[in-house]
């Protein structure tokens, strides 16, 4: 017991230092994160992190690649394109709500809207566009919204994520909020997102291989065999929350949007590769 106490005290001291340094800028956070994973996986090329678990294991990757000839999301993407191009009842299309007609813009989402002082994700923007044009909003986790988002991602294929935290205390607060969410332990099982995706990527949890933080949102929406369909990033957040017995938050809640803001910022510079397939 005494030994344990001494260890605890020693750890306490070692852990004091980080707190002093906290308050880093988003860009410093990102650089440190990149450095951290480069050191953890020196043999993985930076851009390859967008492939999640497949960047870390040859066998899994080979299996995955053999399935890419006939991706199961192809039909959904085609449907997404159709819906994206079809006029609303008022004659306008989704394109009218987005920069460049919504083509090749995925890499700029989510962004901080200085007017409404909130984080706007691509799915939120899709629904805002619908409502502005007198259409009912879509459900956020799967179905049409996932198909439209998937199509929009294909038009940005290979573009580097370029998330900005503008010089606005509210924007920084949203980013910090997402960061705090990612690092806070939740649920009866007491895990943070980081417990799995920062501390243990490359390791197996039962039969699942854990992916690193870096590149995590790049492939979304993804077609999971478990889902049998496309699902959005927030559907995945909810699943990861539930797995540790934490009540998930609603898709597109402020908490999840801020989380996506932080998480995507960490992947700045990495390419958009969505949609993709996952187990």
């Amino acid at each position: 017991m005494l030994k344990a106490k001494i260890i605890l005290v020693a750890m306490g001291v070692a852990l004091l230092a980080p707190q002093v340094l906290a308050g880093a800028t988003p860009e410093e956070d990102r650089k440190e994160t990149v450095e951290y994973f480069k050191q953890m996986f020196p043999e993985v090329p930076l851009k390859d992190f967008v492939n999640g678990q497949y960047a870390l294991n040859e066998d899994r990757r080979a299996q995955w690649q053999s399935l890419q000839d006939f991706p199961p999301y192809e039909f959904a993407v085609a449907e997404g394109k159709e819906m994206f191009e079809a006029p609303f009842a008022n004659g306008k299309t989704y394109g009218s709500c987005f920069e460049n007609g919504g083509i090749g813009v995925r890499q700029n989402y989510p962004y901080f809207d200085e007017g409404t002082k909130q984080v706007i994700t691509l799915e939120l923007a899709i629904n805002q566009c619908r409502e502005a044009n007198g259409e009912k909003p879509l459900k956020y986790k799967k179905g049409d919204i996932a198909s439209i988002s998937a199509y929009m991602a294909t038009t940005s294929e290979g573009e580097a994520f370029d998330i900005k935290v503008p010089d606005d205390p509210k924007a920084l607060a949203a980013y910090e909020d997402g960061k705090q969410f990612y690092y806070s332990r939740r649920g009866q099982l007491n895990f943070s997102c980081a417990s799995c995706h920062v501390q243990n990527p490359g390791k197996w949890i039962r039969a699942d291989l854990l992916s690193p933080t870096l590149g995590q949102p790049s492939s979304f929406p993804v077609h999971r065999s478990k889902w049998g369909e496309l699902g959005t990033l927030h559907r995945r957040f909810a699943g990861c929350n539930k797995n540790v017995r934490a009540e998930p938050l609603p898709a597109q809640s402020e908490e999840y949007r801020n989380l996506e803001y932080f998480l995507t910022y960490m992947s700045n510079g990495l390419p958009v590769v969505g949609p993709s397939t996952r187990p």
Partner: protein
Amino acid sequence: MRKGLIYVCLTTLALGVAPVVLAGPSQADIDRGKELVFSRKDGNCLACHKMDDGKLTGTIGPELADMNTRYPDRGILFKRIWDETQFNPQTVMPPFGRHSILSKDQINRVIDYLYTL
């Protein structure tokens, strides 16, 4: 009756033998422990630890083996399963006791089983 009990306890204490050791877990206790360790909705220890004949075990925690030699003190083992964060604040091992994931009794059955490894 009660006097008798007290006498028995005092004797065991005097002999320096913990009652637990005298009693020893039954095969049923051990089986129950293994069930708790392997079941996904209870201990789910295999998610992170390789041990025994467990299949599809994770690699997050160390292999659990040779427990008698490594944990001569049952109390320490209990405390680590109860709440490993007390020993390592950054551990990812769930605090099974502190968060009521397993009851005291259940943890004791888990330990009965671990000592067979």
